[in-house]
């Protein structure tokens, strides 16, 4: 029953208003940070490169997201670190 209703509600997400909202979210991030999507992507990659130089990270589980708190943009990084195997030097 609840699934059926959820399905009906989810049909809405194909509608143009959700497309508008999703696209606007990204556009506003770009406008507010003055970063293009490509620059944002290469910033994330460089960030990970620098971190990996010091610690071993689980690159598949990395999440770096731009979030909004009020009108403030925030870069949130969640970077799981692999247990140190105490590499012999």
């Amino acid at each position: 029953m609840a699934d059926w209703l959820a399905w009906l509600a989810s049909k809405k997400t194909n509608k143009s208003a959700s497309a508008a909202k999703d696209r606007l979210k990204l556009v506003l991030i770009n406008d507010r940070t003055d970063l293009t999507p490509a620059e944002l992507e290469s910033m994330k990659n460089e960030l990970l490169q620098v971190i990996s130089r010091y610690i071993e990270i689980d690159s598949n589980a990395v999440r770096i997201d731009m979030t909004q708190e009020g009108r403030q943009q925030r870069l949130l990084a969640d970077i799981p670190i692999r247990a140190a195997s105490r590499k012999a030097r």
Partner: protein
Amino acid sequence: MSATVVTVTSGKGGVGKTTTTANLAVALAAGGQKVVCIDGDIGLRNLDVILGLENRIVYDLVDVVEGRCRLKQAMIRDKRLQELYLIPAAQTRDKNAVSPSDMVRLTDDLREEFDWVLIDSPAGIERGFRNSVAPADTVLVVTNPEVSAVRDADRIIGLIESEEKGPARLILNRVNYEMVKRGDMLTSDDVLELLAVELIGIVPEDDHVIMSSNRGQPVALDPKTRAGTAFQNIARRLRGEDVPFMNLEVKEDIFQKLSRLIRPGGN
């Protein structure tokens, strides 16, 4: 008496600034307030026709600033509402004829005699935006539920913040409830989530807006219309009243509502 100076602006053009200014002026004046509105859109004067006062213009804003007339001489008194005045924009003059400090001086003179000074601003990136925002105590940003208008609203809200005139308050104009119900128009919740500002009003798309501007009789003079009521409500909120948003401003449809009831916290 010490007026509150309210500037009505937007990022994108044509979203309803002049309509909003005229209707808030009328609604406030009908509520017994003393109101003067200033058309800040030099070269593209419009507030006069929307208010139906275009035939009575003798002097304009630039004449006042350049000392060709006294402030009182440029103020046109409305005949329907005794406490409503308009200072028209110059139609032919150079936009640079007025500076932000001219506007501050002018509004300071008006503050003593009025409850409200409303300024109809040109859209955000144009010269004249800064003139209109400089004297503001509070800035209202008008937008429509469309991608380009929302995007431009975000930029202008940022600009208002950086001019230290924030936080701006939002008017969402031309909401088409049929489209919202179909899922083909951003809801007010969507827009608020994206822009993260305070909402002061939602105005429906309403044919009466154009019909009343055809006649030079702002729609707020007729509170039987949906747009008229919406503008009246914004005027009351400006005066500090806590007016709930109208019923037709509800955006959730039955399926969303049901699924939220069944799965609280969902959707």
